[in-house]
């Protein structure tokens, strides 16, 4: 399963995320910024802000 960029902006935006998690998510987001077209990147970041934790958990289910 691929990383969803949405996950990273979801973490950065989540009130319960700790400083370390937020900083790590930002670092990873910066790392992959150039791996996808700018428009897709921005759209994914915006979508991530609308996710709920339940959405993300459902997304992660195939990982188990």
């Amino acid at each position, binding site marked *: 399963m691929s990383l969803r960029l949405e996950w990273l902006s979801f973490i950065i935006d989540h009130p319960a995320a700790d400083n370390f998690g937020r900083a790590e998510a930002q670092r990873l987001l910066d790392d992959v910024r150039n791996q996808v077209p700018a428009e897709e990147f921005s*759209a994914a970041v915006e*979508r991530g802000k609308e996710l709920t934790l339940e959405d993300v958990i459902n997304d992660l289910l195939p990982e188990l």
Partner: protein
Amino acid sequence: MLERGLGLLRPLGEDLGVAWGLSWLSLVRGVGGGDVAQGRALLQEGFPIARRVGSAHLIGRFLNQKVILEDPALGGSVEDARKLRERILSEQREVGDPYHLSFAMANLGDFLFQHRSFDEGKALLKESLELARESGSGAEVTPLDRLTEAALMSGDLDEAEGYASEMLQVSRDYWFIALEPRALALLGMVATRRGNILEAEGLLVEALGIARGMENQLSTLGVLVSVAGLRIAQGHVAATRVVKFHH
């Protein structure tokens, strides 16, 4: 249930039980989006009882709860938040309960670390860890967690692995099930940075499995960033809509 227990204990003059009940109730009521003012009121009622009973462990517990419940009233002032933690640590040193003293050290150390006083924060976290190890109370997990983060931030993977492995062991020894996914996620992060992808995959699948079995879904949030790091290391990146949205 807690209130009912308190109602039974109060007429009996069971001060120790009443103080414990008020301590728990202040957290239940005041934390996690609850009524902070009510939590503080319960704490203020229970703290003098703990003093009267003279239980160092309980006094220490109330002091650390003060940080949790008084913080929101500081309006986000970093200076005031730091002073609060310093005052509580000073009082904890006088009380001398190792578990809660270690916790107060970790709390101030973490605060300093988060606010870029790295050296000062790390020194306090190490002091907290030593004390917790001596007391064998399981309080090691908090400084171990923060020290792992510090090591990861400075790129010292051996040190990070050492702290995270110890955190995992302590979590298992003391049945801190909620902290196991966190420790596994930190170990997964170390493995990813070393390029040990299979090892990272195994650790993170285990972490997600434990987190998923818990009621507190926030544990999953702590694992998520490690999974994201692993997927990037594998070159698996996508920016596609794959989940349902709630509008």
